[in-house]
Every structure is written in C-alpha cells, then in structure tokens.
C-alpha cells in the first residue's frame, strides 16, 4: 500500500492544515527553505518538491507551509499500520509512506483479495488519504506495482505472474539506491525485464549484490523478511464481530468459543498450553490484554475460559470491542488423560494432581505466582536460611523428624532487642523485658551456639568484634507459660555488654 501524499494528508487529518488550502511541508536544505512534500491541490497548481519556498509562495500566495516532521510522520504511519491489523494480523509500516500487509489466508474473510483491497481503499479514501494498493505474490512485486500503477484503483496480480508483470516496469521501482539507478540508465537498462535478461554474475560484479538481491526478492526466488510489530503466535485464534460488543456476558462467551477452537488445535498435536494471553481490539484502537498462567499444561477450554473470566473485569470495553485474539504463548506436551471406566473403578476421572493444580492455578492467577509456595529444608544452621521456598506442585522433600535442635514456631524477620538481667558468664537470663512487659524466667535450656557460616562470611565490619558473628540461643519459659527463643551476641567483656535479642516464639 503506498500513500503518495502521506505527510501533507496526515497534517490535514490532524487538523494542522486545512484541506481546502494547498499545503506543503518545508525543510531547510543548506540554509534555504525548500518544499519537501506537496499536497495534490498544490501539485495541481504547479508546485513540486525541492522547490524553493520563496518561489513557491510567488506562484501560490495562499500556500500553507509547515515544517516537516519526519518523526511524527513515522509514528503516525506505525499507527496506521496498527489500524490495518483489522485486515490481517501482519501489518508493518514501510517508511516513509507505505504499509506492508501480508494477507495470506485472510482474503477469504472479505470475499477475495480484490474485495479486500477495495474495502481498504474505500476506508482510506473516506479518511482523506490517497492510496495506491497492489496485491502480488512477493513484497517486491507488490511494492513495484503500487508505485507504478497510474490509475487510482488497486491492482491484483494472480500468483506466478510476477516476472511477466515486472518486465515492463522501470528499474527505479526495484528499490535500489539512486546511484545504481543512474548507472543502469547510463548503460541503457531502463526496464526490469532488460535487467533480468543479463547474466547474474556480471550484474553482481558490476553493481554489487543489491540489484540481484532485489530482483530475486521481487521474483520470489529469495524470501524477504519484514519486521512485523506483532508477530503471530503459532497458537492463536481470532474472532471478529460485525457489531462491536461490550457486555461481560458476550465477552465470556467469545472467550469460551476461542478456547474451544484453540484446544481442538492443541489436542491434534497432543500439546497443552501453559500461559495464555487474550487481546481485545477496541474500536478506538486500544488493545487491552489479560494474561493467565498455569502450573501444568492445560487443554480444557472451560478451565481456560474460567481463569480468563476471573480477570475480565480489568478490561475496559470503551466504545466496543471488534475482535478478540486468544493466543497460547507457551505450550508443552500433554498426553491425553486416561479415562477410568465408571463401573469398574468408580473414582474420579481426573487425576488428583490435576484437580489440585486447578485450585493452585486459580489462587496463583488471583494473587500472583510468587505468593504460593511449599517449604523445603535447606542445609544451613542459621535459622533464617534454613527454609527454602519451592513452587507448590513440586513434591515435598521430607523433613527430618528426629532433629535434636528445637526450633520456634514463629520466627521474627528481625530479632527484637530486649533488656535482660542475666548472671554471667553463660547462664540463661533471669528476667527480661520485651515490648514493655517484664517476664520472669522459670525454666530455660541452652545455650546453643550458632555461628555465621564462615564460607559465606564477608569481612567482619571493623567496629564490631569477631564474636558478634556468633549467637548463643536460649529456650526460655516464663512463669505465665510463654516460651521464647532468644539469643545473645557478643561476650560480656569489661568494655561492652552483650546484647540480647528475641528471635522467635514457641507455641
């Protein structure tokens, strides 16, 4: 698709210039202001690009000259490419003033390639954009045909006729640099057909690799790669509507239908999806999306639709939703479930792992996956590091029940300082004050020395003695029955008193 007057017509659309007046964009070239792009009305009056502005104003006094803004042009072109995604999911901007659309497999939705092109041209014309469309088997041929077509209608080239169509077109339409084009003209090669008849080795030796590459791309021998902004996921289904929808019930029903379509495809290759993204294409081109993830691969459309439905209230339908796309961004192999015969083994047909995974998925998608875990032991004496979190479906490793060390039920994240009265040197405390309350100690066991792991220890801070990195833990019970786990760091030397902290509580 080629928009010959894109910069000026963009200005007309945004209202920076009125369509009635002739408009041109202006840039400064070597200190002199020259016209860069002219609108059709100005071109009809005789203005051309690269004409000096003063001269242009002399010809046409009511000319509206606006500074060229290629950045805004590019951004708007990408927006236009995004709008074109309603025709095909693969739409990319081709700077400075074209759009690529890959309509392989999309044309039947509109009744044929010519009809698609006609609809697109009509829509563009309704928005005030002149366009020339061409449909062909390769991007290179389509580009050449779009830029060459004189009449204002789209031309559709049947497959396989690229060489014949290109034969009569001028060489300039092969997207070469101007120097090569000038050289080719100098040699008398003006049409692409003449270029194609030359031996390829001589051509590449004389002009470099580009002409041969472009020729091959146009004729379909070499594939051309275009960077699509939204590359399609292989597992994606799309439903578009004639009338925009917006109610939650309709959206839920659409999600169920899409999930059924996607799961039938997944089942054919025995795969299940791990994460799903549903994108809603709104009328005003916003595309809100919701994503869910599951712990195990899943192929049940009701479960997928249910998990997506929980998050549906985050989506704002705006003025309506035109199309919904559901894609499975991660898949994994999934064997078909083993069905149990009901009269032989009357247990549930779903394996219990799957049912637990359902609940865990629901909670994980609602709260966030990092908020569900199982604990496994980690080899470390330091109590803060003795537990490790693993995802909940990982089978739990066993905890040694016969461990001699007694550990508290509640462990504070930061040990709280307490004031302790204790006889020196190693006896457990007699009384202590915690959170303002005084506790008299009735029984105590300990001390248990836990030192910082020497293989992990960084250099000791200079102001703290080495002995601060060991802790002597005491398990203490007060006269009311409360049981505490406290430790002392440092030793009671003459210079500094030891510090006591409360680290945990026993039930």
């Amino acid at each position: 698709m080629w928009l010959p007057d894109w910069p000026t017509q963009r200005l007309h659309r945004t209202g920076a210039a009125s369509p009635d007046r002739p408009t041109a964009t202006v840039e400064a070239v070597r200190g002199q202001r020259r016209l860069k792009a002219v609108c059709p009305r100005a071109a009809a009056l005789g203005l051309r690009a690269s004409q000096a502005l003063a001269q242009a104003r002399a010809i046409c006094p009511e000319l509206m000259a606006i500074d060229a803004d290629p950045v805004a042009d590019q951004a708007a072109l990408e927006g236009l490419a995004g709008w074109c995604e309603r025709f095909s999911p693969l739409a990319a901007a081709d700077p400075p003033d074209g759009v690529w659309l890959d309509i392989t497999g999309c044309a039947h939705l509109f009744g044929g390639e010519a009809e698609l092109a006609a609809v697109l041209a009509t829509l563009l014309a309704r928005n005030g954009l002149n366009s020339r469309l061409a449909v062909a088997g390769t991007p290179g041929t389509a580009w050449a045909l779009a830029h060459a077509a004189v009449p204002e209608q789209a031309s559709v080239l049947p497959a396989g006729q690229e060489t014949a169509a290109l034969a009569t077109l001028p060489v300039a339409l092969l997207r070469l640099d101007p120097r090569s084009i000038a050289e080719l003209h100098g040699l008398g090669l003006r049409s692409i057909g003449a270029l194609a008849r030359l031996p390829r080795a001589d051509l590449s030796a004389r002009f470099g690799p580009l002409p041969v590459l472009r020729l091959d791309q146009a004729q379909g021998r070499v594939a051309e790669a275009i960077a699509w902004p939204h590359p399609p996921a292989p597992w994606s289904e799309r439903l578009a509507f004639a009338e925009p929808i917006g109610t939650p019930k309709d959206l839920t029903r659409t999600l169920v239908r899409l999930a059924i379509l996607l799961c039938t495809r997944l089942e054919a290759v025995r795969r299940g999806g791990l994460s799903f993204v549903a994108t809603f294409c709104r009328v005003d081109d916003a595309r809100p999306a919701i994503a869910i993830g599951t712990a195990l691969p899943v192929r049940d459309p009701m479960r997928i639709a249910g998990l997506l439905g929980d998050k549906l209230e985050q989506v704002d339908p705006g003025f309506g939703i035109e199309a919904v796309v559901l894609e499975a961004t991660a898949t994994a192999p999934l064997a078909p479930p083993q069905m149990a015969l009901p009269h032989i083994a009357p247990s549930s047909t779903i394996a219990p792992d799957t049912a637990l995974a359902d609940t865990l998925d629901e909670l994980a998608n609602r709260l966030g996956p990092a908020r569900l875990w199982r604990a496994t032991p980690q080899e470390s004496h330091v109590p803060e590091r003795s537990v490790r979190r693993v995802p909940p479906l990982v089978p739990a490793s066993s905890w040694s029940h016969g461990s001699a060390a007694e550990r508290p039920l509640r462990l504070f994240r930061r040990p709280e300082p307490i004031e302790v009265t204790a006889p020196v040197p190693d006896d457990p405390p007699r009384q202590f004050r915690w959170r303002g309350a005084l506790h008299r100690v009735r029984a105590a066991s300990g001390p248990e020395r836990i030192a910082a792991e020497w293989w992990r220890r960084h250099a000791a801070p200079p102001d703290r003695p080495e002995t601060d990195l060991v802790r002597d833990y005491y398990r203490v019970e007060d006269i009311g029955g409360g049981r505490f786990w406290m430790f002392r760091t440092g030793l009671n030397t003459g210079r500094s008193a030891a510090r006591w902290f409360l680290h945990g509580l026993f039930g």
Partner: protein
Amino acid sequence: MLPAGLHPDRTALQVLRSHLRAPQAGATYGVLRFGDTSVAACLPAGGLALGNLHEIGARGPEAETGTVAAGFAACLLAALPDRRPVFWIAPCCDLHMPGLPAYGLDPGRLILVHTRTDVETLAAMETALRAGMAAAVLGEVGKLGRLPARRLQLSCRKRGSTGFVLRRWPYGRRETMEEATAAVTRWEVAPAPSEAAFREPGPARWRVVLQHARGGHEGAWIMEATTDDAAHPLRVVAGLADAAPAPDRRRLAG
C-alpha cells in the same frame, strides 16, 4: 408424610425424635477424637467434627503473635486422618517450618499462601475449601464477619475439607470477638506453665477453653502437645473446674 420404607406405626413425633438424635453438627465426614472422656462429653460428636469450620482464638499479647493458637492448630492438623495437603493462608508469613515437627506436623504437607488483607485471606480460603482437594484449610484472619463465616462453613460442608480460622491481629488493633459465630466450635488457647524437668522447659502446654460448641457445652482443660500418640493430637493433663474463661490476668509482672 412418612418417608418410604418406614414402619407405618411410627408416629410423626418418633420420626422427629430420630432426626433430632442424629448428630447435630453433621459429623458425616468423620470425627477427630481427643482420647479423653471429658472432652468427648463436651463435643456433640465425641470429637472434633471434620468437614466443618472451627475457630481458634487467643487473648492478650497472643492475639498479636498467634503462637499458641498456631501450635494448637498444628497438633490438630497433624492428627487428621486425611493425608492430603493442607493450605495455610496468612497475611503475615512468619511461620517457621522447622518448628512444626515438634507438634507432629510434617511441614512438607503444607502449601503456604501469602495474602495481603483479611478479605483476600477469606476469598482464598473459600476457593480452597470449595475445590475440596485439601485435607484442611487454615486461615489467619482478624476481622471475621457473620456472612463470610457462614460462607466458609457452607464451603466446608460442600466438599468435606475441614476449615480452621485462627483469629489473629498481627498489627495490634485488636477488635472484640463477635458473640455469635457460624463456626461449629470456638476455642481459646492461652499458654500454661509446662512440666519443667531439671529447670528446662518441658513439652508445650496450654490452657484450652472451649467457648462455644454447636450442640455441646463449654469446657476448659490444660492440654499438652504430644507426639507419642499419633491418633490423639493432645494429651489432656487436667480438666479445669471453671468452664468460663478466666479474666485477663496475664500481667506477667515480677
């Protein structure tokens, strides 16, 4: 109208009597026995009715830390006959796993869920109970309204998972407990001095008060956590004469 298969001579009154004699709290999912006659006398089904909601609370500083309530709950969870995973849902994740084997509970059975608010905790509890894939679901909740409690009780009955609600206000701001509760039993646990041997603390001991039991009556005991008897979670050391909970005398001053 008499149900089919019933002897036609039985009057409606006798039918009603037989219905009333059926266990009130619906102990159709099993019962967890304490192994003590005084406890069994207080509870309608002779033990803790599984597949129902039970509330465990505490008073004083324990309302903030929730330690003895957690220990009591851990003993009950360890003795459940169902060996499936247990959900522990709490907004404050300071439960230390190596401390659980002392109460007989294997930490590998726990699936921990860290929520942010009481509302999230209750919603997560309801989801886990409705799925019915866990042996029990325990949630640490501060504010429990009547309607959420009723919904939790219905979710428990639906699939047979036992629900435990630990009343805990981890950030202070203790609110008074509601008078009526939808839970089948309501316990209040306070620490009690243990049997100290050689001036070392003995096994954990608690003063357990059964404040409310649907279809039963109240009681108070001193119970000790024991791992010797796998069937009975706690060993009742002594029964307390005054069934009413003692006023808050835990001043713990010297």
